[in-house]
C-alpha cells in the first residue's frame, strides 16, 4: 500500500559515475568503502606473497634487506589501516542505519568526507614507492628507529606514512562520531538500546574506542613528524627525548585498535549465527556487556606489547590482559550455545562464521600464552607473535569479513553469490590460512625472529617456511575464487528477493538493494528480532 509510484526525479539525468562520486547515501558510501578496502587488500596481499616468496628458502633471492623491510612494513600498514578497519567501517556504514530503521547516517556529508580521505591517504602512502623508498620501520614505525634517516627511513616514505595515517585516523574519528550520533539519535520508534542488533552494539563500542584512542596516535604521529623534520626531541634520547615514549603512546591506540578490528567482525558473526541456526542469540545481554567490558579493558593493556622494555609495570598489564580473556570467553559460549541444537543451514556465511569461531579461538589462546610475562620474554618478536596476530586479524577479522560479505551481498546487489564457489573458497582459504600461519607457532618456538629477510639454512626452519609460503599462495588462490564469484554473481547471480536468508533484523524488511531513503515502512519493533516477530505473528500488524 505504501509503494511509491512516483516519477523519477530530475537527478536521473546525472551520470551514474557523477552520482556515485558525489553521493551522500550511506549505502553507496558503504559499498565504496568496501571496494576501496578490497583494492588495498589485494595490493597488500601481493606484498605478503612477495614476503613469503623471499622467505621460502634461506638466502636472499629476490629483494635486498631494505626492500624487504619496505614490503612487510607496507603489508602491515595497508592491511590494518586501509583494509580491515575501513572494511568493517564500510559494513557498518551500509548496515547500521538499515538495522536501526534510519533513513541515513546523522551527518551524510561528513560520511562522504570520511570515505574520500581513505583513498587519498592510501595514495599518499603508496607514493613512497616512487619517491625513493616507503616507510621501512615496520607497521609500528617505532621511534627512534623510524627517525633514523640513514638506516630505516632513507626516503620521504616515512613522512608520507605519517601524513597518510593522520588522514586515515581523522577519517576514522569522523566516522566514529557519525556512528555514535546515528545510533543514539536516529533509531526508529520502538528500537530501544536493548533491542538493537548485536552488530549495532559492537559498532557503538568500536566507535567509542576509535573516538578515544585514534586521536592519541595522531598526537604520536605529529610528534614523530616534528622530530623527523623540525629537529624536535620527543623520542631521541641523544637530544633529551624518551626512547619508549613513542611505544607507550602508539600502543595506547594500537591495542584498542585490535578491538576496533575484531569487535565489528564479532558483531557480524553474531548476526549470522542466529539466522543460520534458526535460534535467537544465546545470552543477548551478556554479549553486550561482554563487548562493553572488552572495550573498557582494551584501554588498560597496551603495555603488554612492551614487556621486554623493562619500563612498564608487568603484573598490572599481565593481569589486565588475562582478564580480557573472560568477556571473550563469554562470547564464545554465546556463539557455541546459539548453534547448539539449532537447525544449522550450512551455507557459505555460516561456514565462514564457524571459521571465525575456531580460528579466533586459537588466536585467543596463543595470545593468552604471550600475556604471561615469562613466556612473553621468550616469545617476544619471534614468529609466534606473527602467528598470534594473524590468527586474530586474519582468522578473526578476515573470516568475519568474508562471512559478512556473503551474508549482505544479496542485500547490496539484489543477487545471491554462488554457493558452490563460495564453499570452495572457504575450504581453500581455511586450508591455506592454517598452512601459512600454524607453522609460524613452531618457527617462533624454534627461535625464528620476525622481520628478517634471510635466515640460516642450518637453523632448522627451512621446511616450515616453505610450508607457510605454499599456504600463502593457497590463500591467494582462494581470493581469485572470491573475485570470480563476485564477478559472475553480479552478472548472472540468482535474484535474491528482499529476505533470502529469513533474517531477523530490519535491513531485510526493505527491498534488495534498498531505495535511497531505505524504508517505505517499518515493521513494529518489540524485540531485537523484529522480522522474526513479524514473520511469526508476534506483532499486532502481521
Amino acid at each position: 500500500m505504501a509503494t511509491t509510484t512516483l516519477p523519477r526525479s530530475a537527478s536521473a539525468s546525472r551520470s551514474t559515475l557523477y552520482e556515485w562520486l558525489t553521493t551522500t547515501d550511506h549505502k553507496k558510501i558503504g559499498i565504496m568503502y568496501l571496494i576501496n578496502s578490497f583494492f588495498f587488500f589485494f595490493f597488500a596481499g601481493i606484498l605478503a606473497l612477495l614476503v613469503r616468496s623471499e622467505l621460502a628458502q634461506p638466502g636472499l633471492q629476490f629483494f635486498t634487506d631494505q626492500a624487504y623491510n619496505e614490503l612487510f612494513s607496507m603489508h602491515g600498514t595497508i592491511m590494518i589501516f586501509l583494509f580491515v578497519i575501513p572494511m568493517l567501517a564500510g559494513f557498518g556504514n551500509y548496515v547500521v542505519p538499515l538495522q536501526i530503521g534510519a533513513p541515513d547516517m546523522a551527518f551524510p556529508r561528513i560520511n562522504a568526507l570520511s570515505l574520500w580521505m581513505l583513498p587519498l591517504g592510501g595514495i599518499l602512502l603508496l607514493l613512497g614507492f616512487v619517491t625513493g623508498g616507503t616507510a621501512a620501520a615496520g607497521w609500528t614505525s617505532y621511534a627512534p628507529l623510524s627517525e633514523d634517516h640513514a638506516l630505516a627511513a632513507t626516503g620521504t616514505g616515512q613522512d608520507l606514512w605519517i601524513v597518510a595515517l593522520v588522514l586515515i585516523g581523522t577519517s576514522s574519528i569522523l566516522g566514529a562520531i557519525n556512528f555514535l550520533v546515528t545510533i543514539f539519535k536516529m533509531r526508529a520508534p520502538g528500537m530501544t538500546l536493548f533491542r538493537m542488533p548485536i552488530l549495532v552494539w559492537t559498532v557503538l563500542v568500536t566507535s567509542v574506542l576509535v573516538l578515544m584512542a585514534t586521536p592519541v596516535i595522531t598526537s604520536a604521529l605529529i610528534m614523530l613528524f616534528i622530530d623527523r623534520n623540525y629537529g624536535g626531541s620527543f623520542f631521541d634520547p641523544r637530544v633529551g627525548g624518551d626512547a619508549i615514549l613513542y611505544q607507550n603512546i602508539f600502543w595506547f591506540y594500537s591495542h584498542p585498535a585490535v578491538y576496533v578490528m575484531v569487535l565489528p567482525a564479532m558483531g557480524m558473526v553474531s548476526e549470522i549465527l542466529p539466522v543460520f541456526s534458526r535460534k535467537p542469540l544465546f545470552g543477548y545481554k551478556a554479549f553486550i556487556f561482554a563487548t562493553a567490558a572488552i572495550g573498557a579493558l582494551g584501554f588498560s593493556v597496551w603495555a603488554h606489547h612492551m614487556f621486554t622494555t623493562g619500563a612498564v609495570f608487568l603484573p598490572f598489564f599481565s593481569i589486565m590482559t588475562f582478564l580480557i580473556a573472560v568477556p571473550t570467553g563469554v562470547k564464545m559460549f554465546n556463539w557455541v550455545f546459539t548453534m547448539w541444537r539449532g537447525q544449522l543451514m550450512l551455507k557459505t556465511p555460516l561456514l565462514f562464521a564457524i571459521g571465525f569461531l575456531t580460528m579466533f579461538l586459537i588466536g585467543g589462546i596463543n595470545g593468552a600464552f604471550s600475556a604471561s610475562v615469562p613466556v612473553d620474554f621468550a616469545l617476544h618478536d619471534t614468529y609466534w607473535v606473527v602467528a598470534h596476530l594473524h590468527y586474530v586479524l586474519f582468522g578473526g577479522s578476515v573470516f568475519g569479513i568474508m562471512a559478512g560479505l556473503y551474508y549482505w551481498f544479496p542485500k547490496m546487489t539484489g543477487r545471491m553469490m554462488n554457493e558452490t564457489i563460495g564453499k570452495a573458497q572457504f575450504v581453500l582459504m581455511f586450508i591455506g590460512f592454517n598452512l601459512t600461519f600454524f607453522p609460524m607457532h613452531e618457527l617462533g618456538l624454534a627461535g625464528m625472529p620476525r622481520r628478517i629477510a634471510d635466515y640460516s639454512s642450518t637453523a632448522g626452519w627451512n621446511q616450515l617456511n616453505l610450508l607457510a609460503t605454499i599456504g600463502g599462495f593457497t590463500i591467494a588462490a582462494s581470493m581469485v575464487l572470491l573475485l570470480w564469484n563476485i564477478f559472475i554473481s553480479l552478472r548472472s547471480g540468482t535474484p535474491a528477493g528482499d529476505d533470502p536468508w529469513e533474517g531477523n533484523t530490519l535491513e531485510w524488511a526493505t527491498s534488495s538493494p534498498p531505495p535511497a531513503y531505505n524504508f517505505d515502512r517499518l515493521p513494529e519493533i518489540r524485540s531485537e528480532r523484529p522480522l522474526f516477530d513479524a514473520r511469526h505473528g508476534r506483532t499486532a500488524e502481521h
Partner: protein
Amino acid sequence: MTITTGAETHPVPTEHNPLASMPHDTHGGISNPVLGMLLFITSEVMFFGGLFAAYFSLRANSPQWPTINPETGEPFQLAILPFVGPATILLILSSVTCQLAVWGIRRDDRTAFIRAMAVTVVLGIVFLSMQLIDYSLLGSEGLTLSSGPYGTTYYTLTGFHGAHVFGGVIMLSVVLYRGMAGQFSGKHYDAVEAASLYWHFVDVVWILLFSLLYLLPGKTAAT
C-alpha cells in the same frame, strides 16, 4: 502500528527522504550537531592528552626543567608579561562574549548575538597575534622547536593550541557570517551552540596549558 512514509497522501520525489519529515530527534534532548560536537571535543581531549603525556614524560626524564639555554648558560625563561598574561585574559573574556552570543540568539535577540560574536572573533584574532609576537620574542632569545625537550614541548603544545584557536576563529566567523545573513533564530541555533562549545573547550585547554607552562614551578638539577 506501522510507520508509513506518508507517500500515499503526500507524493514526494523518490530522491526525497520520506522519513526526513519525521523528527529524527524522537527521544528529545540534545540535538545532533551539539552531540556531534561534544563527541568531537572528546576526541580532541584525547589528542591533547597524548601531547600532555609526552610533556610530563620528558619533564620527568629531564634532570632540570626548564632546560639550559646553550646560548646564555641559564635555564630558559618564559615571560607572562607583556603578552601572554593579557592574551590569557582576553581569551577568557572571549569565552564570556561567546556565551553572551549564545544567550542572545536563544532569546531571539539577533543584534546582541551578532555584536557579541563579532567581539569574540576579534578577541580570538588578537590572541593569535599576541601569541605570534611572543613566539618571535622567544625565538630571538634562543628558544626554538629544536632546542631540546623544553622548546619542543613548548612549541608543540602552544602551537597546536594556537592551531585550534585558528580553527575556532574560522568556525565562529562562519557562524557570524551565517548569523548576519539571518540564518539563525531563537528556534534554530544548533550551529551557534556547537561552535561555542568548541570555543569554550579551546579556552579550557589554554587555561591548563598556561598553568602548566607558566605557573607550575620548575625543578633544578640535584647537586
